[in-house]
């Protein structure tokens, strides 16, 4: 485990109630694994399940946390990232309160500060959602 709880706040600018990452399990090369335990206080809950925008936000914040970690390792401040585009989003199942999400983030091609990011959200190895997004970091 690289980061948990309050330490996540050193990586991303989001704060409660919209913090959608509570762990960074690992980060190596172009891949990181993050986590989120869905609580009954989750801002994106609808009928006891995390809504689609919440999963997209979780993936985006996971990518942001990864970028923040990389910046820290390089001795720089965590960058502010903006979602430029969400593409090929697939939702297979919305997670419920109590589930622990594990998300694999893969950083891909970067062109002029815009990075192609792929995210896969799983719960107990079951693929819940996946997407590509483009993130602009400043």
């Amino acid at each position, binding site marked *: 485990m690289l980061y948990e709880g309050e330490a996540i706040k050193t990586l991303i600018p989001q704060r409660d109630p919209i913090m959608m990452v509570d762990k960074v399990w690992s980060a190596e090369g172009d891949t990181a694994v993050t986590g989120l335990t869905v609580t009954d206080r989750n801002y994106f809950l609808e009928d006891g399940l995390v809504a689609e925008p919440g999963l997209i936000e979780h993936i985006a914040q996971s990518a942001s946390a990864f970028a923040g970690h990389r910046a820290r390792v390089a001795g720089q401040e965590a960058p502010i990232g903006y979602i*430029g*585009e969400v593409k090929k989003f697939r939702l297979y199942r919305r997670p419920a309160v109590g589930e622990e999400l594990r998300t694999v983030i893969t950083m*891909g*091609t*970067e*062109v*002029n500060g*815009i*990075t*192609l990011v792929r995210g896969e959200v799983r719960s107990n190895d079951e693929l819940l959602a996946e997407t590509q997004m*483009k993130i602009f970091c400043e």
Partner: protein
Amino acid sequence: MTKEEIIEKVNSVLAEEFEVEESVITPDAVIKNALELDSLSLVDLVALIDQEFGVKISNAELPTIKTFADLYTYIESHQA
């Protein structure tokens, strides 16, 4: 891969990805105009060339690739 094979594959995958007729992809056509690229879709182009040909276009070299002829030549000279 020969130059002819590169041209055929580039035209096919770009037409499909960017939803344009292959007829708009001619050697002298400007890529940005033919594919209606913006700063976001430019990332898709670079990623697609990497995925399909294993050729990474650097940020420094990207501005030199203006036409499809430039792209064919770049891929041909950088393929493994």
